[in-house]
């Protein structure tokens, strides 16, 4: 190999992987301090789950499927996709359940999104993400959002990643979704922790979903109302790429 072959994610040697693991340990500790339950999810996710989450509708341009070579699926689509985010597994796992009280789940997972270009630590087709998913009543979610923001800022700052929080929106596929994107920005449902030294690259995000996933996956609170959700996503590759110097063991 001459080192210039196409890559979806950076090739890491032992100490580089260890640095990424240590970054994850810092975020995992933060999740543990919030009372999160650790989960392990697979890299593949059923297309049905993504359809239920309306991902296939909102972001078809980013979705990668796990198709079988030389086999034609009956409707032209594969039953399995490469997971574009970790939190969809959590909603599928809790579907049709009643969440008795505030619940926090955390998981580290490999995620896949189709990107036209590969730039290590900036834009990767395959990347690792640690997510902290919160499910509960609206008031608890709102209060948790501010605490989570401060906690992420502290962890990142300790690693030398002093960024800024900015309102942001998801990269919706259809131009007709421009209104959704504007509403996201206006209501600050998506806040990104951006790294000014890399042109505002998002290192983490806090995403409040309201009752959307509760409704889509029939997850309810004891009073029968759809649970509200929020996820905190940390792009581990980006942190590892941009964290200056050695990353200490937490």
């Amino acid at each position, binding site marked *: 190999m001459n080192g210039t072959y196409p890559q979806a994610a950076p090739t890491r040697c032992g100490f580089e992987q260890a640095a990424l693991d240590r970054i994850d340990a810092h975020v995992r500790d933060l999740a543990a301090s919030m009372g999160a339950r650790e989960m392990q999810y697979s890299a593949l996710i059923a297309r049905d789950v993504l359809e239920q989450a309306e991902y296939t509708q909102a972001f078809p341009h980013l979705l990668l499927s796990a198709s079988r070579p030389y086999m034609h699926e009956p409707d032209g689509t594969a039953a399995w996709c490469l997971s574009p985010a970790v939190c969809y597994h959590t909603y599928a796992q809790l579907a049709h359940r009643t969440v008795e009280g505030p619940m926090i789940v955390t998981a580290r997972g490999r995620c896949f999104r189709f990107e036209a270009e590969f730039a290590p630590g900036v834009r990767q087709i395959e990347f690792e993400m640690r997510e902290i998913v919160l499910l509960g009543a609206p008031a608890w979610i709102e209060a948790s959002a501010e605490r989570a923001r401060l906690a992420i800022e502290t962890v990142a700052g300790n690693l030398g990643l002093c960024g800024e929080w900015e309102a942001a929106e998801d990269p919706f596929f259809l131009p007709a*979704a*421009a*209104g959704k994107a504007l509403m996201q*920005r*206006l209501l600050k449902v998506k806040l990104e922790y951006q790294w000014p030294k890399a042109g505002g690259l998002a290192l983490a995000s806090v995403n409040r979903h309201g009752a959307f996933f509760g409704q889509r996956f029939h997850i309810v609170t004891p009073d029968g109302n759809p649970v509200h959700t929020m996820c905190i996503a940390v792009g581990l590759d980006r942190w590892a790429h941009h964290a200056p110097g050695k990353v200490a063991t937490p």
Partner: protein
Amino acid sequence: MSDSLAPRVESREAFAAALIAFIEGPLFARHGASRSSTTIDSSTPLFETGVIDSLGIIDLLAFVETATGRPIPMRKVDMRFFGTVDRITRAFWEDREARTS
């Protein structure tokens, strides 16, 4: 959106009145399916109450841009500037007046 929906206005009061008329009229008519109330005033919360939704916001921005003759920068797509008719008027009409005077 048609420019004719955003009339030329000459004062702060006229801008606020035209904006309320636009929201209660053309905007409700186009996107009003989920609306429970059809009247608003300058302090009615536009988003928390669902007066403006993800379909209506594009028309709302287009109205303000046309009426003021200025594009709205993304940094100003913020509840501090868009929460009510009064806030929109302050942020965009008064700002325009300050820049042109």
